[in-house]
């Protein structure tokens, strides 16, 4: 009894400490920049300190059993979904007897058509940062935060309908053979084709970071990006327009920087890692001025296995389970107390957070998507 009480006192103290650090836990991404420091703190403490963090809820170690029930899990496929399978789905099946029917290829339009037609077959869907906000409220179930450890999730990475399951960085990768011995350091160098000749890769998507990076290259601080000054961003982008090679898929960005078709590219950190370690190409990633973002779990409205979906999401976002996929792919945890394997920590976006790190204001980007996209398309196709 006594030891238990002492334990809970420590837990309470740690909780207080983190609440103090994180300056209020409002779940809006716009608050994220102010918490960059706390994210670093938690990431490094996760790396160094051994026994910190609140006690695990029962669901984290003993999730309820549902022998023979099949739940549909949908994610982006490939190595990513494989990491989620070995990290989460397979252990969860062993613990609870829940079987997972997997589909590869998250598609928001499919969620919408399932919900609209009343034929919902997807239970747990891994979606990008542009989905799961209030704009999609009529497509999604509100998450059960009596189960999910919301106060342990990085600030800004949980909302009514979604909770971050993995973090990643939108960063820069460069081909070392194309740099003539120099090392680029920030987005300003990305835009400097005099100093670093060669083509540049950017994602052909208005709200994927292209405006943000142009603004950072132009001297805007990572906390002052929103509302986006599109005119200023476009003016900056214009300076390298003829050198831009636009990519549509992550695989293209990885392949092009690896082959040297582009000298530098904007890249999702996992793709940069694969270019270097899987394809064995002369590629380096740079975290300076990265945008830290996440993939999220959502539950489509009317999911036939809503309760189990909530239990699984709670289990997978627990400190002891959340970092499991990072053992096979460099996508880090969203739980502040989760401890990734020390050998993978240098490759995780969340462990490379510093003062230069920016965060998407998802609410702003989704709300203004049509306007931003119209301006982007009007410029890019000129």
């Amino acid at each position: 009894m006594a030891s238990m009480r002492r334990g809970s006192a420590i837990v309470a103290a740690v909780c207080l400490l983190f609440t103090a650090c994180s300056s209020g836990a409002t779940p809006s991404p716009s608050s994220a920049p102010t918490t960059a420091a706390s994210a670093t703190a938690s990431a490094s403490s996760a790396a160094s300190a051994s026994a910190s963090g609140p006690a695990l809820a029962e669901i984290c170690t003993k999730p309820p059993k549902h022998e023979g029930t099949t739940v549909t899990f949908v994610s982006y496929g490939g190595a990513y979904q494989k990491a989620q399978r070995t990290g989460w789905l397979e252990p969860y099946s062993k613990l609870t007897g829940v079987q997972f029917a997997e589909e590869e290829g998250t598609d928001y339009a499919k969620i919408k058509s399932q919900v609209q037609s009343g034929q919902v077959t997807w239970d747990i869907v891994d979606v990008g940062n542009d989905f799961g906000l209030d704009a999609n409220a009529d497509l999604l179930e509100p998450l059960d935060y009596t189960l999910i450890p919301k106060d342990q999730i990085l600030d800004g990475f949980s909302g009514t309908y979604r909770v971050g399951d993995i973090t990643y960085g939108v960063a820069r990768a460069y081909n070392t053979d194309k740099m003539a011995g120099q090392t680029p350091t920030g987005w300003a160098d990305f835009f400097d084709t005099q100093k670093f000749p060669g083509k540049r890769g950017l994602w052909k998507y208005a709200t994927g970071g292209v405006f943000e990076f142009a603004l950072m290259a132009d001297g805007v601080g990572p906390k002052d990006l929103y509302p986006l000054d599109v005119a200023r961003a476009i003016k900056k982008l214009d300076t390298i327009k003829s050198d831009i090679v636009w990519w549509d898929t992550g695989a293209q960005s990885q392949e092009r920087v690896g082959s040297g078709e582009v000298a530098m590219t904007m890249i999702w950190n996992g793709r940069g890692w694969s270019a270097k370690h899987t394809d064995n190409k002369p590629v380096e990633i740079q975290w300076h001025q990265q945008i830290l973002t996440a993939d999220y779990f959502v539950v489509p409205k009317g999911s036939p296995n809503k309760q189990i979906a909530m239990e699984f999401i709670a289990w997978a976002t627990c400190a002891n389970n959340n970092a499991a996929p990072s053992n096979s792919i460099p996508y880090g945890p969203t739980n502040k107390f989760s401890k990734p394997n020390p050998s993978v920590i240098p490759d995780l976006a969340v462990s490379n957070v510093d003062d230069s790190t920016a965060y998407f204001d998802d609410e702003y980007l989704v709300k203004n998507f049509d306007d931003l996209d119209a301006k982007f398309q009007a410029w890019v196709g000129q």
Partner: protein
Amino acid sequence: MRFTRLNLFRSGRRTGGPIANRWAWLALPLIAFLAIGFLVPLVVIGARSVTEFPRGGDTSLLANYQRFFAGEANVRVLINTFWIACLSTVVCLAIGYPYAYLMTIVRPRIAGLLLVAVLVPFWSSLLVRTFAWEVILRDTGIVNRTLEILGLTSAPLPLLRETHSVLLGMSQILLPLMVLPIYTIMRRIDSEYGKAAANLGATPMRAFVRVFLPLSFPGIVAGSLLVFVLALGFYITPAILGSPKNTMLSEFIVLKATTGSLDWGLASAMAVVMLGSALAVLFVASRFIRVRDVFGSLDQG
């Protein structure tokens, strides 16, 4: 015998005679499939374009169409879509017509080989072929590397991400659809006509221009319409081989339907605009040629 009966039946229908064929019910599954798989979705998309609007937006009947035509990029992309489709048709015709002609004048065995040569690419995946072009044409690709190693160029030539690379990729995919209808028509042209023209004193060139070309015209029209209409729906090939300047409307439809606010209303309006424009082109074409005869002539043995 059988063909004669079929033809009689056809001509009977054309003059408004009764359809009295007990085999007609065999077409029912196809009709049902077309109704469910094509007609219903078409109606749904048409309805959605005038009923589904983003939250808090204008909900008047034509609001989605207004939004479409208000977008500077949308109109440009629509025009570009038709422009690229036109150019692909011209390129396919320029390559396909001589090719089909060659097939008619060589020995049957070689004609067979030529046919296989045009069909083989048709059987391989569109994506594979498109990415293959990228690997060949890009700055670090085979062509540019070879030129560089031979010392012919110092900097890579801009082979990729231009309109010509889009046309290259698209025409390679669409070429069989041009060659086959033209070849079918050409084979039916009686070689005696050419001889008759020569007997009457026409030079080979003149005989070709005045006799053979007009007789092969239905094939040209059939092939061109097929290629043009299919080219309108392309978007992956222009996205991979072209620059954003070559973006086609289907890419925008996908973008609106699957990202952001899942704006199916606007995406549907785009689809309707594209379908409407394609029908308008067919309508204009039908003022000059009898579209029905063009396709009908294909299956007359």
